Protein backbone atom coordinates (compact mmCIF):
# COMPACT_ATOMS: atom_id res chain seq x y z
CA UNK A 1 0.00 0.00 0.00
CA UNK A 2 1.97 2.87 -1.29
CA UNK A 3 1.51 5.93 -3.43
CA UNK A 4 3.52 5.32 -6.56
CA UNK A 5 4.07 7.22 -9.74
CA UNK A 6 6.46 9.35 -11.68
CA UNK A 7 7.17 13.04 -11.46
CA UNK A 8 5.32 13.35 -14.75
CA UNK A 9 2.19 12.02 -13.05
CA UNK A 10 2.67 14.33 -10.12
CA UNK A 11 5.32 16.90 -9.31
CA UNK A 12 7.29 16.97 -6.14
CA UNK A 13 5.66 20.24 -5.10
CA UNK A 14 2.23 18.64 -5.60
CA UNK A 15 3.37 15.79 -3.41
CA UNK A 16 4.47 18.21 -0.70
CA UNK A 17 1.06 19.81 -0.83
CA UNK A 18 -0.66 16.46 -0.43
CA UNK A 19 1.59 15.67 2.51
CA UNK A 20 0.70 18.97 4.17
CA UNK A 21 -3.01 18.46 3.60
CA UNK A 22 -2.97 14.95 5.03
CA UNK A 23 -1.07 15.59 7.09
CA UNK A 24 0.94 12.56 6.12
CA UNK A 25 3.82 10.78 7.75
CA UNK A 26 6.15 8.48 5.90
CA UNK A 27 9.04 8.01 3.55
CA UNK A 28 9.13 9.27 -0.01
CA UNK A 29 11.64 7.59 -2.26
CA UNK A 30 12.53 9.06 -5.62
CA UNK A 31 14.56 7.22 -8.19
CA UNK A 32 16.08 9.00 -11.13
CA UNK A 33 18.51 7.44 -13.54
CA UNK A 34 21.67 7.87 -11.59
CA UNK A 35 20.50 8.96 -8.20
CA UNK A 36 17.97 8.14 -5.58
CA UNK A 37 16.55 10.37 -2.98
CA UNK A 38 14.78 9.77 0.27
CA UNK A 39 12.57 12.40 1.85
CA UNK A 40 11.21 11.97 5.34
CA UNK A 41 7.82 13.47 6.03
CA UNK A 42 6.49 13.84 9.57
CA UNK A 43 2.96 15.15 10.10
CA UNK A 44 3.01 16.82 6.70
CA UNK A 45 6.42 18.44 7.12
CA UNK A 46 9.55 17.58 5.22
CA UNK A 47 11.98 16.90 8.05
CA UNK A 48 14.99 15.27 6.45
CA UNK A 49 16.28 14.16 3.09
CA UNK A 50 19.23 12.54 1.47
CA UNK A 51 20.33 12.17 -2.10
CA UNK A 52 22.70 9.40 -3.04
CA UNK A 53 24.23 8.07 -6.20
CA UNK A 54 22.69 4.94 -7.46
CA UNK A 55 24.52 2.68 -7.69
CA UNK A 56 27.12 3.45 -5.14
CA UNK A 57 25.01 4.86 -2.33
CA UNK A 58 27.36 7.78 -2.11
CA UNK A 59 25.65 10.65 -0.42
CA UNK A 60 25.49 13.61 -2.82
CA UNK A 61 23.48 15.98 -0.74
CA UNK A 62 21.49 15.97 2.43
CA UNK A 63 18.73 17.96 4.08
CA UNK A 64 17.58 21.14 2.26
CA UNK A 65 20.09 20.78 -0.53
CA UNK A 66 18.96 17.24 -1.27
CA UNK A 67 15.32 18.34 -1.58
CA UNK A 68 16.22 21.28 -3.79
CA UNK A 69 18.16 19.06 -6.12
CA UNK A 70 15.27 16.62 -6.34
CA UNK A 71 12.95 19.52 -7.13
CA UNK A 72 15.02 20.03 -10.25
CA UNK A 73 14.30 16.56 -11.53
CA UNK A 74 11.87 16.17 -14.39
CA UNK A 75 11.99 12.43 -14.57
CA UNK A 76 11.93 10.12 -11.62
CA UNK A 77 9.71 7.49 -10.22
CA UNK A 78 8.50 7.84 -6.67
CA UNK A 79 7.02 5.74 -3.94
CA UNK A 80 5.53 7.14 -0.77
CA UNK A 81 4.74 4.83 2.04
CA UNK A 82 3.21 5.61 5.37
CA UNK A 83 5.63 5.03 8.21
CA UNK A 84 4.82 6.30 11.68
CA UNK A 85 8.44 5.83 12.75
CA UNK A 86 9.34 9.01 10.95
CA UNK A 87 7.64 10.90 13.78
CA UNK A 88 10.49 9.75 16.03
CA UNK A 89 13.17 10.99 13.68
CA UNK A 90 14.81 14.25 14.66
CA UNK A 91 14.14 16.94 12.06
CA UNK A 92 17.18 18.13 10.18
CA UNK A 93 15.43 20.37 7.73
CA UNK A 94 14.41 23.73 9.13
CA UNK A 95 13.07 25.42 6.01
CA UNK A 96 9.46 24.67 5.18
CA UNK A 97 8.30 22.91 2.04
CA UNK A 98 7.15 26.08 0.32
CA UNK A 99 10.52 27.71 0.80
CA UNK A 100 12.17 24.62 -0.68
CA UNK A 101 9.87 24.71 -3.71
CA UNK A 102 10.64 28.40 -4.24
CA UNK A 103 14.34 27.78 -3.97
CA UNK A 104 14.00 24.97 -6.48
CA UNK A 105 12.29 27.34 -8.90
CA UNK A 106 15.05 29.89 -8.49
CA UNK A 107 17.64 27.26 -9.29
CA UNK A 108 15.71 26.09 -12.28
CA UNK A 109 15.89 29.57 -13.76
CA UNK A 110 19.64 29.46 -13.39
CA UNK A 111 20.56 26.21 -15.10
CA UNK A 112 24.22 26.67 -14.27
CA UNK A 113 23.31 25.82 -10.72
CA UNK A 114 21.41 22.69 -11.59
CA UNK A 115 22.95 19.26 -11.34
CA UNK A 116 23.62 17.45 -14.59
CA UNK A 117 20.99 14.91 -15.36
CA UNK A 118 21.97 11.69 -17.00
CA UNK A 119 19.21 10.02 -18.92
CA UNK A 120 18.61 6.46 -20.03
CA UNK A 121 18.11 5.94 -23.74
CA UNK A 122 17.87 2.86 -25.90
CA UNK A 123 21.59 3.21 -26.55
CA UNK A 124 22.41 3.12 -22.87
CA UNK A 125 24.73 0.30 -21.99
CA UNK A 126 23.99 -1.37 -18.70
CA UNK A 127 25.85 -3.66 -16.43
CA UNK A 128 25.12 -5.52 -13.25
CA UNK A 129 26.42 -3.61 -10.27
CA UNK A 130 29.69 -5.11 -9.14
CA UNK A 131 28.91 -5.22 -5.46
CA UNK A 132 25.33 -5.55 -4.36
CA UNK A 133 25.17 -6.32 -0.69
CA UNK A 134 24.11 -9.65 0.67
CA UNK A 135 21.15 -7.78 2.12
CA UNK A 136 20.10 -7.28 -1.46
CA UNK A 137 19.24 -10.93 -1.67
CA UNK A 138 16.05 -10.03 0.18
CA UNK A 139 14.88 -7.78 -2.60
CA UNK A 140 11.78 -8.71 -4.57
CA UNK A 141 11.36 -7.89 -8.22
CA UNK A 142 8.41 -7.68 -10.53
CA UNK A 143 8.31 -9.56 -13.78
CA UNK A 144 9.65 -6.75 -15.96
CA UNK A 145 12.47 -6.13 -13.55
CA UNK A 146 13.35 -9.80 -13.72
CA UNK A 147 13.25 -9.83 -17.48
CA UNK A 148 15.51 -6.86 -17.84
CA UNK A 149 17.88 -7.91 -15.11
CA UNK A 150 18.45 -11.27 -16.69
CA UNK A 151 19.39 -9.66 -20.01
CA UNK A 152 21.70 -6.99 -18.66
CA UNK A 153 24.94 -8.92 -18.70
CA UNK A 154 24.45 -10.23 -22.21
CA UNK A 155 23.05 -7.23 -24.05
CA UNK A 156 25.10 -4.43 -25.58
CA UNK A 157 22.42 -1.83 -24.90
CA UNK A 158 18.88 -1.25 -23.79
CA UNK A 159 17.56 -1.57 -27.34
CA UNK A 160 18.77 -5.16 -27.49
CA UNK A 161 17.16 -5.82 -24.14
CA UNK A 162 13.84 -4.46 -25.43
CA UNK A 163 14.09 -6.67 -28.48
CA UNK A 164 14.94 -9.75 -26.44
CA UNK A 165 12.22 -9.22 -23.87
CA UNK A 166 9.52 -7.54 -25.94
CA UNK A 167 9.25 -4.83 -23.32
CA UNK A 168 8.21 -1.40 -24.67
CA UNK A 169 11.05 1.15 -24.56
CA UNK A 170 9.24 3.55 -22.22
CA UNK A 171 8.51 0.76 -19.79
CA UNK A 172 12.04 -0.59 -20.10
CA UNK A 173 13.52 2.79 -19.22
CA UNK A 174 11.30 3.04 -16.14
CA UNK A 175 12.23 -0.47 -15.13
CA UNK A 176 15.93 0.22 -15.56
CA UNK A 177 15.57 3.27 -13.34
CA UNK A 178 13.95 1.04 -10.72
CA UNK A 179 16.71 -1.55 -10.96
CA UNK A 180 19.24 1.24 -10.61
CA UNK A 181 17.43 2.57 -7.58
CA UNK A 182 17.63 -0.84 -5.95
CA UNK A 183 21.32 -0.89 -6.79
CA UNK A 184 21.34 -3.97 -9.01
CA UNK A 185 22.08 -2.33 -12.33
CA UNK A 186 24.20 0.59 -13.43
CA UNK A 187 24.91 2.54 -16.57
CA UNK A 188 28.21 1.82 -18.28
CA UNK A 189 29.78 5.21 -18.72
CA UNK A 190 31.45 5.50 -22.12
CA UNK A 191 35.16 6.22 -21.87
CA UNK A 192 35.25 9.82 -23.17
CA UNK A 193 32.27 10.86 -21.10
CA UNK A 194 33.82 9.35 -18.02
CA UNK A 195 36.80 11.66 -18.38
CA UNK A 196 34.63 14.73 -18.70
CA UNK A 197 32.19 13.80 -15.98
CA UNK A 198 31.57 15.38 -12.62
CA UNK A 199 33.61 14.99 -9.50
CA UNK A 200 31.23 12.56 -7.90
CA UNK A 201 31.60 10.17 -10.78
CA UNK A 202 35.35 10.50 -10.83
CA UNK A 203 35.54 9.62 -7.15
CA UNK A 204 33.16 6.76 -7.36
CA UNK A 205 35.21 3.55 -7.40
CA UNK A 206 32.54 1.86 -9.45
CA UNK A 207 32.30 4.56 -12.06
CA UNK A 208 36.02 5.06 -12.26
CA UNK A 209 36.32 1.44 -13.25
CA UNK A 210 34.36 2.33 -16.33
CA UNK A 211 37.26 3.24 -18.62
CA UNK A 212 38.88 -0.11 -18.01
CA UNK A 213 35.51 -1.76 -18.27
CA UNK A 214 34.71 -0.17 -21.60
CA UNK A 215 31.33 -0.39 -23.15
CA UNK A 216 32.71 -2.35 -26.07
CA UNK A 217 33.63 -5.14 -23.68
CA UNK A 218 30.01 -5.84 -22.97
CA UNK A 219 29.13 -5.75 -26.62
CA UNK A 220 32.01 -8.06 -27.34
CA UNK A 221 30.93 -10.40 -24.60
CA UNK A 222 27.41 -10.42 -25.91
CA UNK A 223 28.45 -11.11 -29.47
CA UNK A 224 30.85 -13.79 -28.32
CA UNK A 225 27.92 -15.38 -26.59
CA UNK A 226 25.87 -15.07 -29.72
CA UNK A 227 28.59 -16.58 -31.85
CA UNK A 228 28.96 -19.52 -29.55
CA UNK A 229 26.88 -22.43 -30.72
CA UNK A 230 24.99 -22.43 -27.46
CA UNK A 231 24.12 -19.29 -25.63
CA UNK A 232 26.93 -19.82 -23.17
CA UNK A 233 29.96 -17.60 -22.87
CA UNK A 234 33.28 -19.00 -23.95
CA UNK A 235 35.32 -19.08 -20.80
CA UNK A 236 38.93 -20.04 -21.11
CA UNK A 237 40.77 -22.42 -18.82
CA UNK A 238 42.76 -19.56 -17.38
CA UNK A 239 39.67 -17.72 -16.31
CA UNK A 240 38.06 -20.85 -14.86
CA UNK A 241 41.21 -21.44 -12.87
CA UNK A 242 41.20 -17.84 -11.65
CA UNK A 243 37.63 -18.31 -10.46
CA UNK A 244 38.52 -21.53 -8.69
CA UNK A 245 41.52 -19.93 -6.99
CA UNK A 246 39.34 -17.06 -5.84
CA UNK A 247 36.66 -19.38 -4.46
CA UNK A 248 39.23 -21.52 -2.67
CA UNK A 249 40.57 -18.35 -1.09
CA UNK A 250 37.21 -17.19 0.21
Amino acid at each position, binding site marked *: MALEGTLQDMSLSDLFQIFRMGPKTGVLILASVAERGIIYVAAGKVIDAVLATSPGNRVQAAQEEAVIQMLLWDHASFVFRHDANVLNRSPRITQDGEWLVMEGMRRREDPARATPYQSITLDTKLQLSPLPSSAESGVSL*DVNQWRILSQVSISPNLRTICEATGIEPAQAIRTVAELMAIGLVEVVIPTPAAKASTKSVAHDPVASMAPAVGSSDLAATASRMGADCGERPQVGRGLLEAIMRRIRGL
Partner: protein
Amino acid sequence: MQALKIVITGSYAAGKTQLIRTISDIETISTDYEVTLDEERQLKRETTVALDFGTIAINEQVTLYLFGTPGQERFDFMWEHLTVGCLGYVVMVDSTRPGHFAETQRLMSRFAEITDAPYIVAANKQDDEAALPVSYVRRRLGVPLEIPVVPCVATDRPSVKGVLLSLLRYIAAQSQASDE
Protein backbone atom coordinates in the same frame (compact mmCIF):
# COMPACT_ATOMS: atom_id res chain seq x y z
CA MET B 1 33.97 -5.80 -16.86
CA GLN B 2 33.02 -9.33 -17.56
CA ALA B 3 30.01 -10.76 -15.81
CA LEU B 4 29.84 -14.50 -15.39
CA LYS B 5 26.72 -16.18 -14.19
CA ILE B 6 26.03 -19.31 -12.24
CA VAL B 7 22.42 -20.22 -11.61
CA ILE B 8 21.30 -21.92 -8.41
CA THR B 9 18.06 -23.79 -8.78
CA GLY B 10 16.07 -26.32 -6.82
CA SER B 11 12.63 -26.78 -5.40
CA TYR B 12 11.12 -24.82 -2.55
CA ALA B 13 13.25 -24.68 0.61
CA ALA B 14 16.11 -26.62 -0.96
CA GLY B 15 18.55 -24.02 0.37
CA LYS B 16 19.16 -21.74 -2.63
CA THR B 17 18.90 -18.52 -0.67
CA GLN B 18 21.09 -19.91 2.07
CA LEU B 19 23.81 -21.01 -0.31
CA ILE B 20 23.99 -17.63 -2.03
CA ARG B 21 24.06 -15.79 1.30
CA THR B 22 26.80 -18.00 2.64
CA ILE B 23 29.20 -17.33 -0.18
CA SER B 24 28.47 -13.83 -1.46
CA ASP B 25 30.50 -10.72 -0.92
CA ILE B 26 29.12 -8.71 1.92
CA GLU B 27 28.74 -4.98 1.90
CA THR B 28 29.16 -3.34 5.25
CA ILE B 29 26.40 -1.04 6.25
CA SER B 30 27.60 1.61 8.62
CA THR B 31 26.29 5.09 8.15
CA ASP B 32 22.93 6.40 9.16
CA TYR B 33 21.94 7.15 5.60
CA GLU B 34 22.83 3.79 4.27
CA VAL B 35 20.71 2.17 6.91
CA THR B 36 17.78 4.23 5.71
CA LEU B 37 18.11 2.53 2.35
CA ASP B 38 16.73 -0.55 4.06
CA GLU B 39 13.41 1.20 4.01
CA GLU B 40 13.62 1.17 0.28
CA ARG B 41 14.37 -2.51 0.21
CA GLN B 42 11.40 -3.03 2.44
CA LEU B 43 9.24 -1.29 -0.10
CA LYS B 44 10.51 -3.44 -2.88
CA ARG B 45 9.59 -6.50 -0.90
CA GLU B 46 5.96 -5.70 -1.42
CA THR B 47 6.22 -6.65 -5.07
CA THR B 48 6.22 -10.15 -6.32
CA VAL B 49 9.23 -12.40 -6.79
CA ALA B 50 12.10 -12.82 -4.38
CA LEU B 51 15.46 -12.42 -5.99
CA ASP B 52 18.45 -14.32 -4.75
CA PHE B 53 21.40 -12.55 -6.08
CA GLY B 54 24.96 -12.73 -4.94
CA THR B 55 28.32 -11.76 -6.30
CA ILE B 56 31.89 -12.87 -5.92
CA ALA B 57 34.48 -10.47 -7.27
CA ILE B 58 37.03 -12.59 -9.09
CA ASN B 59 39.37 -9.75 -10.01
CA GLU B 60 39.10 -6.18 -11.25
CA GLN B 61 37.67 -7.27 -14.55
CA VAL B 62 35.54 -10.22 -13.68
CA THR B 63 32.63 -10.66 -11.32
CA LEU B 64 30.86 -13.94 -10.77
CA TYR B 65 27.13 -13.66 -10.22
CA LEU B 66 25.02 -16.22 -8.48
CA PHE B 67 21.35 -16.11 -9.37
CA GLY B 68 18.82 -18.17 -7.48
CA THR B 69 15.76 -19.14 -9.46
CA PRO B 70 12.48 -17.86 -8.10
CA GLY B 71 10.49 -20.45 -6.27
CA GLN B 72 6.98 -19.96 -7.53
CA GLU B 73 6.01 -22.20 -10.41
CA ARG B 74 4.28 -19.37 -12.17
CA PHE B 75 7.70 -17.82 -12.68
CA ASP B 76 9.04 -20.78 -14.58
CA PHE B 77 9.49 -18.68 -17.65
CA MET B 78 12.03 -16.62 -15.73
CA TRP B 79 14.33 -19.60 -15.75
CA GLU B 80 14.89 -19.13 -19.42
CA HIS B 81 15.93 -15.56 -18.92
CA LEU B 82 18.13 -16.46 -16.02
CA THR B 83 19.97 -19.24 -17.75
CA VAL B 84 20.84 -17.22 -20.84
CA GLY B 85 24.60 -16.97 -20.90
CA CYS B 86 25.16 -18.90 -17.69
CA LEU B 87 28.36 -20.84 -17.15
CA GLY B 88 26.57 -23.66 -15.46
CA TYR B 89 24.02 -24.34 -12.76
CA VAL B 90 23.58 -26.13 -9.48
CA VAL B 91 20.42 -28.12 -8.79
CA MET B 92 19.90 -28.07 -5.06
CA VAL B 93 17.84 -30.73 -3.41
CA ASP B 94 16.84 -31.07 0.21
CA SER B 95 18.23 -34.42 1.33
CA THR B 96 15.73 -34.56 4.15
CA ARG B 97 12.63 -34.21 1.95
CA PRO B 98 12.08 -37.19 -0.32
CA GLY B 99 8.67 -35.67 -0.96
CA HIS B 100 10.41 -32.97 -2.99
CA PHE B 101 12.33 -35.33 -5.26
CA ALA B 102 9.62 -35.62 -7.90
CA GLU B 103 9.42 -31.87 -8.21
CA THR B 104 13.19 -31.69 -8.43
CA GLN B 105 13.13 -34.20 -11.27
CA ARG B 106 10.58 -32.11 -13.14
CA LEU B 107 12.72 -29.08 -12.62
CA MET B 108 15.79 -30.89 -13.89
CA SER B 109 14.10 -31.97 -17.10
CA ARG B 110 12.76 -28.48 -17.62
CA PHE B 111 16.26 -27.07 -17.27
CA ALA B 112 17.67 -29.62 -19.66
CA GLU B 113 15.16 -28.36 -22.22
CA ILE B 114 16.05 -24.74 -21.64
CA THR B 115 19.82 -24.94 -21.63
CA ASP B 116 22.70 -27.27 -22.35
CA ALA B 117 24.86 -25.59 -19.73
CA PRO B 118 26.70 -28.06 -17.49
CA TYR B 119 25.20 -28.71 -14.07
CA ILE B 120 25.78 -30.61 -10.90
CA VAL B 121 23.41 -31.68 -8.15
CA ALA B 122 23.97 -30.56 -4.56
CA ALA B 123 22.42 -32.83 -1.96
CA ASN B 124 21.81 -30.20 0.68
CA LYS B 125 21.29 -30.29 4.45
CA GLN B 126 23.82 -33.05 4.89
CA ASP B 127 24.45 -31.68 8.39
CA ASP B 128 21.05 -33.01 9.38
CA GLU B 129 21.41 -36.32 11.17
CA ALA B 130 18.44 -37.62 9.25
CA ALA B 131 19.70 -36.60 5.80
CA LEU B 132 19.51 -39.20 3.06
CA PRO B 133 22.91 -40.26 1.72
CA VAL B 134 24.17 -38.67 -1.48
CA SER B 135 24.16 -41.99 -3.32
CA TYR B 136 20.49 -42.49 -2.49
CA VAL B 137 19.64 -38.98 -3.64
CA ARG B 138 21.44 -39.65 -6.92
CA ARG B 139 19.51 -42.87 -7.45
CA ARG B 140 16.12 -41.42 -6.56
CA LEU B 141 16.63 -38.47 -8.87
CA GLY B 142 17.98 -40.69 -11.63
CA VAL B 143 20.98 -38.44 -12.18
CA PRO B 144 23.14 -39.65 -15.08
CA LEU B 145 26.44 -41.14 -13.95
CA GLU B 146 28.60 -38.47 -15.53
CA ILE B 147 26.87 -35.69 -13.61
CA PRO B 148 28.41 -35.05 -10.18
CA VAL B 149 26.12 -35.25 -7.16
CA VAL B 150 27.89 -33.62 -4.24
CA PRO B 151 27.11 -33.31 -0.55
CA CYS B 152 26.22 -29.81 0.58
CA VAL B 153 25.63 -27.87 3.76
CA ALA B 154 24.45 -24.52 2.52
CA THR B 155 25.01 -22.89 5.89
CA ASP B 156 28.68 -23.87 5.85
CA ARG B 157 31.08 -21.78 3.80
CA PRO B 158 33.69 -24.48 3.12
CA SER B 159 30.92 -26.79 1.96
CA VAL B 160 29.46 -24.15 -0.39
CA LYS B 161 32.93 -23.49 -1.76
CA GLY B 162 33.23 -27.21 -2.42
CA VAL B 163 29.97 -27.21 -4.36
CA LEU B 164 30.98 -24.29 -6.55
CA LEU B 165 34.42 -25.77 -7.13
CA SER B 166 32.84 -29.07 -8.17
CA LEU B 167 30.70 -27.24 -10.68
CA LEU B 168 33.67 -25.28 -12.03
CA ARG B 169 35.80 -28.41 -12.32
CA TYR B 170 32.96 -30.08 -14.17
CA ILE B 171 32.61 -27.09 -16.48
CA ALA B 172 36.37 -27.16 -17.13
CA ALA B 173 36.24 -30.87 -17.89
CA GLN B 174 33.28 -30.36 -20.21
CA SER B 175 34.93 -27.56 -22.16
CA GLN B 176 38.10 -29.62 -22.45
CA ALA B 177 36.10 -32.58 -23.74
CA SER B 178 34.40 -30.41 -26.36
CA ASP B 179 37.78 -29.00 -27.47
CA GLU B 180 39.02 -32.47 -28.30
